[in-house]
Protein backbone atom coordinates (compact mmCIF):
# COMPACT_ATOMS: atom_id res chain seq x y z
CA UNK A 1 0.00 0.00 0.00
CA UNK A 2 1.21 3.45 -0.79
CA UNK A 3 1.23 5.73 2.19
CA UNK A 4 -0.03 9.24 2.05
CA UNK A 5 2.40 11.40 3.90
CA UNK A 6 2.10 14.92 5.11
CA UNK A 7 5.65 16.22 4.82
CA UNK A 8 5.12 18.81 7.53
CA UNK A 9 4.29 16.17 10.18
CA UNK A 10 6.89 14.33 12.15
CA UNK A 11 7.65 10.94 10.57
CA UNK A 12 6.00 8.03 12.32
CA UNK A 13 6.73 5.31 9.77
CA UNK A 14 9.51 2.75 9.68
CA UNK A 15 13.05 3.82 10.57
CA UNK A 16 16.53 2.50 9.94
CA UNK A 17 19.62 2.70 12.12
CA UNK A 18 21.90 5.63 11.42
CA UNK A 19 25.03 7.10 13.04
CA UNK A 20 25.29 10.81 12.27
CA UNK A 21 28.66 11.31 14.00
CA UNK A 22 30.25 8.32 12.29
CA UNK A 23 29.00 9.51 8.91
CA UNK A 24 30.41 12.98 9.61
CA UNK A 25 33.81 11.64 10.61
CA UNK A 26 33.98 9.40 7.53
CA UNK A 27 33.05 12.38 5.33
CA UNK A 28 35.86 14.48 6.82
CA UNK A 29 38.38 11.69 6.23
CA UNK A 30 37.15 11.22 2.64
CA UNK A 31 37.45 14.94 1.88
CA UNK A 32 40.88 15.14 3.55
CA UNK A 33 42.12 12.26 1.42
CA UNK A 34 40.59 13.70 -1.76
CA UNK A 35 41.92 17.24 -1.17
CA UNK A 36 45.32 15.91 -0.06
CA UNK A 37 45.55 13.64 -3.10
CA UNK A 38 44.55 16.39 -5.53
CA UNK A 39 47.09 18.73 -3.88
CA UNK A 40 49.92 16.22 -4.20
CA UNK A 41 48.97 15.47 -7.81
CA UNK A 42 48.18 18.94 -9.10
CA UNK A 43 49.48 21.43 -6.49
CA UNK A 44 48.18 24.99 -7.07
CA UNK A 45 49.19 27.83 -9.37
CA UNK A 46 51.23 30.80 -8.20
CA UNK A 47 52.27 33.23 -10.93
CA UNK A 48 54.31 35.97 -9.34
CA UNK A 49 52.64 39.33 -8.77
CA UNK A 50 53.65 42.09 -11.17
CA UNK A 51 54.83 45.53 -10.15
CA UNK A 52 55.37 48.87 -11.79
CA UNK A 53 59.04 47.88 -11.61
CA UNK A 54 58.58 44.63 -13.53
CA UNK A 55 56.29 46.39 -16.03
CA UNK A 56 58.75 49.22 -16.77
CA UNK A 57 61.67 46.80 -17.06
CA UNK A 58 59.88 44.27 -19.27
CA UNK A 59 57.95 46.60 -21.51
CA UNK A 60 59.29 50.14 -21.17
CA UNK A 61 57.53 51.28 -24.35
CA UNK A 62 54.13 50.25 -23.00
CA UNK A 63 54.90 51.94 -19.68
CA UNK A 64 55.78 55.19 -21.46
CA UNK A 65 52.64 55.08 -23.61
CA UNK A 66 50.44 54.43 -20.57
CA UNK A 67 52.08 57.16 -18.46
CA UNK A 68 51.61 59.62 -21.34
CA UNK A 69 47.99 58.48 -21.57
CA UNK A 70 47.52 59.33 -17.88
CA UNK A 71 48.72 62.88 -18.60
CA UNK A 72 46.54 63.14 -21.71
CA UNK A 73 43.54 61.82 -19.78
CA UNK A 74 42.95 59.00 -22.26
CA UNK A 75 43.46 55.90 -20.08
CA UNK A 76 40.67 53.89 -18.49
CA UNK A 77 41.28 55.23 -15.00
CA UNK A 78 41.77 58.82 -16.22
CA UNK A 79 38.25 58.71 -17.68
CA UNK A 80 36.67 56.37 -15.15
CA UNK A 81 34.38 58.56 -13.05
CA UNK A 82 32.98 57.38 -9.70
CA UNK A 83 34.15 56.14 -7.28
CA UNK A 84 37.60 57.50 -8.28
CA UNK A 85 37.06 60.86 -10.00
CA UNK A 86 34.63 63.03 -11.95
CA UNK A 87 36.16 62.29 -15.34
CA UNK A 88 33.42 60.06 -16.72
CA UNK A 89 30.01 58.47 -16.27
CA UNK A 90 29.51 54.94 -15.03
CA UNK A 91 27.20 52.36 -16.57
CA UNK A 92 23.49 52.84 -15.94
CA UNK A 93 20.36 50.76 -15.69
CA UNK A 94 17.61 52.86 -17.21
CA UNK A 95 17.26 55.84 -14.87
CA UNK A 96 19.43 54.17 -12.21
CA UNK A 97 22.96 55.57 -12.09
CA UNK A 98 24.21 53.47 -9.21
CA UNK A 99 27.88 54.03 -9.93
CA UNK A 100 27.61 57.79 -10.28
CA UNK A 101 25.28 58.25 -7.33
CA UNK A 102 27.81 57.07 -4.75
CA UNK A 103 30.15 59.84 -5.86
CA UNK A 104 33.91 60.01 -5.44
CA UNK A 105 34.74 57.79 -2.47
CA UNK A 106 38.25 56.66 -3.33
CA UNK A 107 39.76 59.78 -4.92
CA UNK A 108 42.27 58.97 -7.66
CA UNK A 109 43.44 61.65 -10.07
CA UNK A 110 45.66 59.62 -12.41
CA UNK A 111 47.74 62.43 -13.98
CA UNK A 112 48.59 63.89 -10.58
CA UNK A 113 48.66 60.73 -8.49
CA UNK A 114 50.51 58.44 -10.90
CA UNK A 115 52.89 60.93 -12.54
CA UNK A 116 53.13 64.45 -11.11
CA UNK A 117 53.26 63.77 -7.34
CA UNK A 118 55.69 60.83 -7.56
CA UNK A 119 58.04 62.96 -9.73
CA UNK A 120 58.14 65.60 -7.00
CA UNK A 121 59.22 62.92 -4.50
CA UNK A 122 62.15 62.09 -6.74
CA UNK A 123 64.00 65.24 -5.69
CA UNK A 124 65.61 65.49 -9.12
CA UNK A 125 66.26 68.91 -10.67
CA UNK A 126 65.15 68.02 -14.20
CA UNK A 127 62.03 66.23 -13.07
CA UNK A 128 61.04 69.10 -10.79
CA UNK A 129 61.62 71.66 -13.54
CA UNK A 130 59.48 69.62 -15.95
CA UNK A 131 56.70 69.37 -13.38
CA UNK A 132 56.91 73.12 -12.73
CA UNK A 133 56.41 73.82 -16.44
CA UNK A 134 53.52 71.34 -16.50
CA UNK A 135 51.82 72.85 -13.46
CA UNK A 136 52.17 76.39 -14.83
CA UNK A 137 50.37 75.50 -18.07
CA UNK A 138 46.61 75.55 -18.69
CA UNK A 139 44.73 72.25 -18.79
CA UNK A 140 44.24 72.73 -22.54
CA UNK A 141 47.94 73.18 -23.08
CA UNK A 142 48.75 70.15 -20.91
CA UNK A 143 46.36 67.96 -22.88
CA UNK A 144 47.76 69.23 -26.16
CA UNK A 145 51.35 68.40 -25.15
CA UNK A 146 50.48 64.97 -23.82
CA UNK A 147 48.23 64.04 -26.76
CA UNK A 148 50.83 65.04 -29.36
CA UNK A 149 53.46 63.05 -27.50
CA UNK A 150 51.11 60.07 -27.30
CA UNK A 151 50.57 60.30 -31.08
CA UNK A 152 54.29 60.49 -31.73
CA UNK A 153 54.98 57.48 -29.48
CA UNK A 154 52.21 55.60 -31.25
CA UNK A 155 53.82 56.23 -34.62
CA UNK A 156 57.32 55.43 -33.39
CA UNK A 157 56.67 51.69 -33.33
CA UNK A 158 57.65 50.96 -29.77
CA UNK A 159 60.16 53.68 -28.91
CA UNK A 160 60.51 54.76 -25.28
CA UNK A 161 61.04 58.38 -26.29
CA UNK A 162 60.63 60.57 -29.35
CA UNK A 163 62.65 63.72 -30.11
CA UNK A 164 60.61 66.93 -30.02
CA UNK A 165 61.52 68.17 -33.52
CA UNK A 166 58.58 70.57 -33.82
CA UNK A 167 58.65 71.72 -30.20
CA UNK A 168 55.14 70.50 -29.41
CA UNK A 169 55.51 68.07 -26.48
CA UNK A 170 56.39 70.60 -23.75
CA UNK A 171 57.68 69.00 -20.54
CA UNK A 172 55.93 65.68 -21.21
CA UNK A 173 58.89 63.66 -22.59
CA UNK A 174 61.04 64.77 -19.66
CA UNK A 175 58.35 63.88 -17.11
CA UNK A 176 57.66 60.51 -18.66
CA UNK A 177 61.28 59.49 -18.96
CA UNK A 178 61.99 60.52 -15.36
CA UNK A 179 58.97 58.46 -14.29
CA UNK A 180 60.28 55.51 -16.31
CA UNK A 181 63.61 55.74 -14.51
CA UNK A 182 61.83 55.91 -11.19
CA UNK A 183 59.62 52.93 -12.02
CA UNK A 184 62.59 50.81 -13.13
CA UNK A 185 64.21 51.12 -9.73
CA UNK A 186 61.00 50.18 -7.90
CA UNK A 187 60.70 53.62 -6.31
CA UNK A 188 57.37 54.28 -8.05
CA UNK A 189 55.79 51.20 -6.44
CA UNK A 190 56.74 52.61 -3.06
CA UNK A 191 55.57 56.10 -3.96
CA UNK A 192 52.11 54.91 -5.02
CA UNK A 193 51.47 52.48 -2.17
CA UNK A 194 52.62 54.82 0.60
CA UNK A 195 50.84 57.92 -0.68
CA UNK A 196 47.90 57.42 1.72
CA UNK A 197 49.38 55.59 4.69
CA UNK A 198 52.98 54.79 5.64
CA UNK A 199 52.25 51.07 6.08
CA UNK A 200 50.44 50.06 2.90
CA UNK A 201 47.70 47.44 2.70
CA UNK A 202 45.83 49.15 -0.12
CA UNK A 203 47.02 48.76 -3.72
CA UNK A 204 44.34 50.79 -5.46
CA UNK A 205 46.71 53.25 -7.14
CA UNK A 206 49.41 50.92 -8.51
CA UNK A 207 46.74 48.45 -9.63
CA UNK A 208 44.70 51.09 -11.43
CA UNK A 209 47.87 52.28 -13.15
CA UNK A 210 48.80 48.70 -14.12
CA UNK A 211 45.28 48.01 -15.32
CA UNK A 212 45.63 50.93 -17.74
CA UNK A 213 48.45 49.05 -19.46
CA UNK A 214 47.37 47.32 -22.63
CA UNK A 215 50.71 45.94 -23.75
CA UNK A 216 51.84 44.36 -20.48
CA UNK A 217 49.20 43.60 -17.84
CA UNK A 218 46.25 42.88 -20.15
CA UNK A 219 48.54 41.04 -22.53
CA UNK A 220 49.80 38.74 -19.75
CA UNK A 221 46.20 38.09 -18.75
CA UNK A 222 45.03 37.23 -22.24
CA UNK A 223 47.98 34.83 -22.65
CA UNK A 224 46.61 33.13 -19.53
CA UNK A 225 43.07 33.12 -21.01
CA UNK A 226 41.89 35.50 -18.29
CA UNK A 227 40.35 38.28 -20.39
CA UNK A 228 36.68 39.12 -20.16
CA UNK A 229 35.96 37.73 -23.61
CA UNK A 230 37.78 34.53 -22.63
CA UNK A 231 35.40 33.87 -19.72
CA UNK A 232 37.71 36.03 -17.59
CA UNK A 233 37.42 35.78 -13.84
CA UNK A 234 36.14 32.24 -13.66
CA UNK A 235 39.48 31.02 -15.02
CA UNK A 236 42.78 30.52 -13.23
CA UNK A 237 46.30 31.03 -14.49
CA UNK A 238 47.60 27.89 -16.19
CA UNK A 239 45.14 25.03 -16.53
CA UNK A 240 43.91 24.94 -12.95
CA UNK A 241 40.20 25.15 -12.30
CA UNK A 242 39.22 28.64 -11.15
CA UNK A 243 35.94 29.97 -9.87
CA UNK A 244 33.91 27.70 -12.13
CA UNK A 245 30.81 28.53 -10.07
CA UNK A 246 30.92 31.96 -11.74
CA UNK A 247 30.20 30.35 -15.12
CA UNK A 248 26.75 31.85 -15.48
CA UNK A 249 28.10 35.28 -14.52
CA UNK A 250 30.88 35.02 -17.14
CA UNK A 251 28.45 33.58 -19.67
CA UNK A 252 26.39 36.76 -19.98
CA UNK A 253 29.47 38.76 -21.00
CA UNK A 254 29.92 36.41 -23.98
CA UNK A 255 26.45 37.02 -25.48
CA UNK A 256 24.36 39.90 -26.76
CA UNK A 257 22.94 42.25 -25.68
CA UNK A 258 25.51 42.33 -22.87
CA UNK A 259 28.61 41.68 -24.95
CA UNK A 260 28.55 44.99 -26.77
CA UNK A 261 26.73 47.05 -24.15
CA UNK A 262 28.47 49.90 -22.38
CA UNK A 263 26.27 49.09 -19.40
CA UNK A 264 27.19 45.38 -19.33
CA UNK A 265 28.55 45.48 -15.77
CA UNK A 266 25.37 46.92 -14.29
CA UNK A 267 23.13 44.71 -16.44
CA UNK A 268 24.94 41.48 -15.63
CA UNK A 269 25.25 42.23 -11.90
CA UNK A 270 21.54 43.11 -11.71
CA UNK A 271 20.55 40.03 -13.68
CA UNK A 272 22.63 37.76 -11.46
CA UNK A 273 21.15 39.39 -8.37
CA UNK A 274 17.64 38.73 -9.68
CA UNK A 275 18.49 35.15 -10.68
CA UNK A 276 19.90 34.44 -7.21
CA UNK A 277 16.78 35.90 -5.66
CA UNK A 278 14.66 33.68 -7.93
CA UNK A 279 16.62 30.62 -6.85
CA UNK A 280 15.74 31.47 -3.26
CA UNK A 281 12.10 31.84 -4.31
CA UNK A 282 11.87 28.55 -6.28
CA UNK A 283 9.47 27.07 -3.69
CA UNK A 284 7.03 29.90 -4.48
CA UNK A 285 7.09 29.77 -8.30
CA UNK A 286 4.07 27.72 -9.45
CA UNK A 287 5.69 26.19 -12.54
CA UNK A 288 9.15 25.68 -11.14
CA UNK A 289 7.99 24.06 -7.94
CA UNK A 290 5.94 21.51 -9.92
CA UNK A 291 8.94 20.46 -12.02
CA UNK A 292 10.16 17.81 -9.54
CA UNK A 293 6.75 16.17 -9.85
CA UNK A 294 6.69 16.31 -13.66
CA UNK A 295 10.23 15.06 -14.17
CA UNK A 296 10.48 12.18 -11.75
CA UNK A 297 14.16 12.20 -10.86
CA UNK A 298 12.97 11.54 -7.31
CA UNK A 299 12.08 8.00 -8.41
CA UNK A 300 15.79 7.50 -8.91
CA UNK A 301 16.81 9.20 -5.70
CA UNK A 302 14.42 7.23 -3.51
CA UNK A 303 14.61 4.10 -5.66
CA UNK A 304 15.03 1.77 -2.69
CA UNK A 305 12.07 3.29 -0.90
CA UNK A 306 9.72 3.07 -3.85
CA UNK A 307 10.85 -0.48 -4.63
CA UNK A 308 10.16 -1.52 -1.08
CA UNK A 309 6.59 -0.27 -1.04
CA UNK A 310 5.51 -1.86 -4.26
Amino acid sequence: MVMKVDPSKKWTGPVRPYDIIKEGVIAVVVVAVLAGGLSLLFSSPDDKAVTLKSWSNNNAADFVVTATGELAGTTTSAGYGAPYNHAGNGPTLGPLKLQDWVGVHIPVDPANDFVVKPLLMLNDGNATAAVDTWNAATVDQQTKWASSYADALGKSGGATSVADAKNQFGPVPGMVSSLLGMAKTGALDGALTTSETPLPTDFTKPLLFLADSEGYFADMASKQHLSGDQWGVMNETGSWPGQSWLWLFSFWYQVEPFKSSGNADTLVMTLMGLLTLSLALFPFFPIIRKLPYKIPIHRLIWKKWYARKL
Partner: protein
Amino acid sequence: MSSSAQSVKKDKNWTSRLRKSTLETMEPQDLLPDNQPAYVASWIYVFGVLTIASLLMLITTGLILTLEGPSWWHISSVGHFFNSMHLWSVELFFVFMVVHLWGKFWMAAWRGKRTATWVTGVLAFGTSIITALTGYLIQTNFDSQWIATQAKDGFNAMGIGAFFNTLNTGQAILLHVALLPLVVGVIVIWHILLVRRKGVVPPIDNDSTIEGGAF
Protein backbone atom coordinates in the same frame (compact mmCIF):
# COMPACT_ATOMS: atom_id res chain seq x y z
CA MET B 1 -4.84 32.23 37.67
CA SER B 2 -5.40 28.91 35.97
CA SER B 3 -2.56 27.39 33.99
CA SER B 4 -4.51 27.55 30.74
CA ALA B 5 -5.05 31.29 31.17
CA GLN B 6 -1.35 31.60 31.80
CA SER B 7 -0.40 29.79 28.60
CA VAL B 8 -2.76 31.91 26.53
CA LYS B 9 -1.14 35.05 27.85
CA LYS B 10 1.84 36.08 25.78
CA ASP B 11 5.09 35.11 27.42
CA LYS B 12 7.00 38.28 28.31
CA ASN B 13 10.08 36.61 29.67
CA TRP B 14 12.84 36.92 27.06
CA THR B 15 14.72 33.98 28.43
CA SER B 16 11.83 31.55 28.35
CA ARG B 17 10.81 32.81 24.92
CA LEU B 18 14.30 32.13 23.58
CA ARG B 19 14.30 28.68 25.22
CA LYS B 20 10.92 27.80 23.77
CA SER B 21 11.78 28.92 20.26
CA THR B 22 15.13 27.13 20.25
CA LEU B 23 15.94 24.34 22.72
CA GLU B 24 12.35 23.21 23.17
CA THR B 25 11.70 22.86 19.46
CA MET B 26 14.11 19.94 19.37
CA GLU B 27 14.66 16.80 21.32
CA PRO B 28 18.16 15.39 21.83
CA GLN B 29 17.21 12.60 19.41
CA ASP B 30 16.45 15.21 16.69
CA LEU B 31 19.81 16.90 17.14
CA LEU B 32 21.97 13.77 17.27
CA PRO B 33 19.84 11.01 15.77
CA ASP B 34 20.80 7.33 15.87
CA ASN B 35 18.07 6.37 13.45
CA GLN B 36 16.42 7.93 10.42
CA PRO B 37 13.17 7.40 8.51
CA ALA B 38 13.54 4.34 6.30
CA TYR B 39 13.49 6.46 3.12
CA VAL B 40 16.74 8.17 4.09
CA ALA B 41 18.66 5.64 2.04
CA SER B 42 20.14 7.26 -1.03
CA TRP B 43 23.54 8.45 -2.22
CA ILE B 44 22.15 11.97 -2.55
CA TYR B 45 22.10 12.47 1.22
CA VAL B 46 25.87 12.14 1.30
CA PHE B 47 26.41 15.45 -0.48
CA GLY B 48 25.15 17.69 2.32
CA VAL B 49 27.51 15.98 4.73
CA LEU B 50 30.37 16.14 2.24
CA THR B 51 29.73 19.89 1.88
CA ILE B 52 30.07 20.31 5.66
CA ALA B 53 33.21 18.17 5.65
CA SER B 54 34.74 20.35 2.90
CA LEU B 55 33.85 23.46 4.89
CA LEU B 56 35.61 22.01 7.94
CA MET B 57 38.62 21.24 5.76
CA LEU B 58 38.53 24.80 4.41
CA ILE B 59 38.49 26.26 7.91
CA THR B 60 41.33 24.00 9.06
CA THR B 61 43.63 24.63 6.08
CA GLY B 62 42.69 28.32 6.15
CA LEU B 63 43.69 28.58 9.80
CA ILE B 64 47.00 26.88 9.02
CA LEU B 65 47.57 29.45 6.24
CA THR B 66 47.10 32.28 8.75
CA LEU B 67 49.98 31.07 10.89
CA GLU B 68 52.84 32.71 9.03
CA GLY B 69 51.03 35.44 7.16
CA PRO B 70 49.90 36.06 3.59
CA SER B 71 53.31 35.68 1.90
CA TRP B 72 54.22 32.41 3.57
CA TRP B 73 52.82 30.16 0.86
CA HIS B 74 54.85 31.87 -1.87
CA ILE B 75 58.16 30.93 -0.26
CA SER B 76 57.57 27.73 1.70
CA SER B 77 56.74 24.33 0.23
CA VAL B 78 54.76 23.46 3.35
CA GLY B 79 52.82 26.70 2.95
CA HIS B 80 52.28 25.95 -0.73
CA PHE B 81 50.94 22.50 0.11
CA PHE B 82 48.39 23.94 2.50
CA ASN B 83 47.43 26.52 -0.11
CA SER B 84 46.81 23.63 -2.52
CA MET B 85 44.74 21.83 0.12
CA HIS B 86 42.75 25.02 0.64
CA LEU B 87 42.18 25.44 -3.12
CA TRP B 88 41.13 21.83 -3.73
CA SER B 89 38.86 21.89 -0.70
CA VAL B 90 37.09 24.91 -2.24
CA GLU B 91 36.66 23.12 -5.54
CA LEU B 92 35.25 20.04 -3.77
CA PHE B 93 33.08 22.25 -1.52
CA PHE B 94 31.36 23.82 -4.53
CA VAL B 95 30.98 20.56 -6.48
CA PHE B 96 29.36 18.90 -3.47
CA MET B 97 27.18 21.93 -2.75
CA VAL B 98 25.88 22.16 -6.31
CA VAL B 99 25.02 18.44 -6.43
CA HIS B 100 23.32 18.87 -3.04
CA LEU B 101 21.39 21.90 -4.32
CA TRP B 102 20.04 20.15 -7.40
CA GLY B 103 19.37 16.99 -5.42
CA LYS B 104 17.20 19.00 -3.03
CA PHE B 105 15.50 20.64 -6.00
CA TRP B 106 14.48 17.36 -7.62
CA MET B 107 13.33 16.07 -4.22
CA ALA B 108 11.21 19.25 -3.83
CA ALA B 109 12.82 19.33 -0.40
CA TRP B 110 11.06 22.58 0.49
CA ARG B 111 7.82 20.66 1.08
CA GLY B 112 6.24 20.58 4.52
CA LYS B 113 7.29 23.97 5.87
CA ARG B 114 10.90 23.60 4.79
CA THR B 115 11.08 26.83 2.76
CA ALA B 116 13.44 28.37 5.31
CA THR B 117 15.81 25.44 4.84
CA TRP B 118 15.90 26.07 1.09
CA VAL B 119 16.34 29.83 1.54
CA THR B 120 19.19 29.45 4.04
CA GLY B 121 20.77 27.04 1.54
CA VAL B 122 20.68 29.71 -1.17
CA LEU B 123 22.10 32.22 1.32
CA ALA B 124 24.93 29.79 2.08
CA PHE B 125 25.57 29.42 -1.66
CA GLY B 126 25.66 33.20 -2.26
CA THR B 127 27.86 34.06 0.71
CA SER B 128 30.20 31.19 -0.17
CA ILE B 129 30.66 32.66 -3.65
CA ILE B 130 31.56 36.07 -2.22
CA THR B 131 33.88 34.46 0.31
CA ALA B 132 35.60 32.52 -2.48
CA LEU B 133 36.03 35.71 -4.51
CA THR B 134 37.74 37.44 -1.58
CA GLY B 135 39.93 34.35 -1.26
CA TYR B 136 41.01 34.68 -4.88
CA LEU B 137 41.68 38.39 -4.21
CA ILE B 138 44.16 37.69 -1.42
CA GLN B 139 46.41 35.24 -3.23
CA THR B 140 48.86 38.15 -3.55
CA ASN B 141 50.01 36.96 -6.97
CA PHE B 142 49.30 37.80 -10.61
CA ASP B 143 45.93 36.04 -10.60
CA SER B 144 44.69 38.05 -7.62
CA GLN B 145 45.89 41.31 -9.17
CA TRP B 146 44.08 40.55 -12.40
CA ILE B 147 40.86 39.44 -10.70
CA ALA B 148 40.93 42.59 -8.53
CA THR B 149 41.16 44.91 -11.53
CA GLN B 150 38.40 43.03 -13.37
CA ALA B 151 35.98 42.54 -10.49
CA LYS B 152 36.16 46.20 -9.45
CA ASP B 153 34.11 47.20 -12.52
CA GLY B 154 31.25 44.91 -11.56
CA PHE B 155 31.10 46.21 -8.00
CA ASN B 156 31.59 49.83 -9.09
CA ALA B 157 28.73 49.44 -11.55
CA MET B 158 26.40 48.66 -8.63
CA GLY B 159 27.75 51.45 -6.43
CA ILE B 160 29.27 48.83 -4.11
CA GLY B 161 32.88 49.31 -5.20
CA ALA B 162 33.19 52.50 -3.20
CA PHE B 163 32.81 50.44 -0.01
CA PHE B 164 34.10 47.02 -1.01
CA ASN B 165 37.23 47.95 -2.97
CA THR B 166 38.68 44.84 -4.60
CA LEU B 167 41.98 46.71 -5.12
CA ASN B 168 42.38 47.13 -1.36
CA THR B 169 44.17 43.90 -0.46
CA GLY B 170 44.10 44.61 3.27
CA GLN B 171 40.32 44.91 3.21
CA ALA B 172 39.97 41.68 1.22
CA ILE B 173 42.22 39.82 3.68
CA LEU B 174 40.17 40.89 6.66
CA LEU B 175 36.88 40.05 4.95
CA HIS B 176 38.10 36.66 3.82
CA VAL B 177 39.80 35.63 7.03
CA ALA B 178 37.42 37.04 9.61
CA LEU B 179 34.01 38.36 8.65
CA LEU B 180 32.87 36.18 5.74
CA PRO B 181 33.78 32.74 7.15
CA LEU B 182 31.88 33.73 10.26
CA VAL B 183 28.83 34.64 8.18
CA VAL B 184 29.00 31.41 6.16
CA GLY B 185 29.47 29.42 9.36
CA VAL B 186 26.44 30.95 11.05
CA ILE B 187 24.26 30.42 7.98
CA VAL B 188 25.34 26.78 7.65
CA ILE B 189 24.67 26.07 11.34
CA TRP B 190 21.25 27.68 10.97
CA HIS B 191 20.58 25.60 7.82
CA ILE B 192 21.50 22.36 9.54
CA LEU B 193 19.53 23.13 12.70
CA LEU B 194 16.47 23.73 10.51
CA VAL B 195 16.98 20.34 8.86
CA ARG B 196 17.39 18.58 12.20
CA ARG B 197 14.36 20.34 13.64
CA LYS B 198 12.05 19.44 10.76
CA GLY B 199 13.38 15.99 10.08
CA VAL B 200 14.35 14.84 6.60
CA VAL B 201 11.66 15.49 4.01
CA PRO B 202 9.70 12.34 3.03
CA PRO B 203 9.62 11.08 -0.56
CA ILE B 204 7.19 12.48 -3.10
CA ASP B 205 4.45 9.88 -3.09
CA ASN B 206 2.61 8.74 -6.13
CA ASP B 207 -0.86 9.23 -4.87
CA SER B 208 -0.20 11.82 -2.23
CA THR B 209 -2.96 14.36 -2.28
CA ILE B 210 -0.66 16.72 -0.52
CA GLU B 211 1.61 18.30 -3.04
CA GLY B 212 2.84 20.26 -0.09
CA GLY B 213 3.62 23.62 -1.57
CA ALA B 214 5.90 25.99 0.12
CA PHE B 215 4.22 25.80 3.49
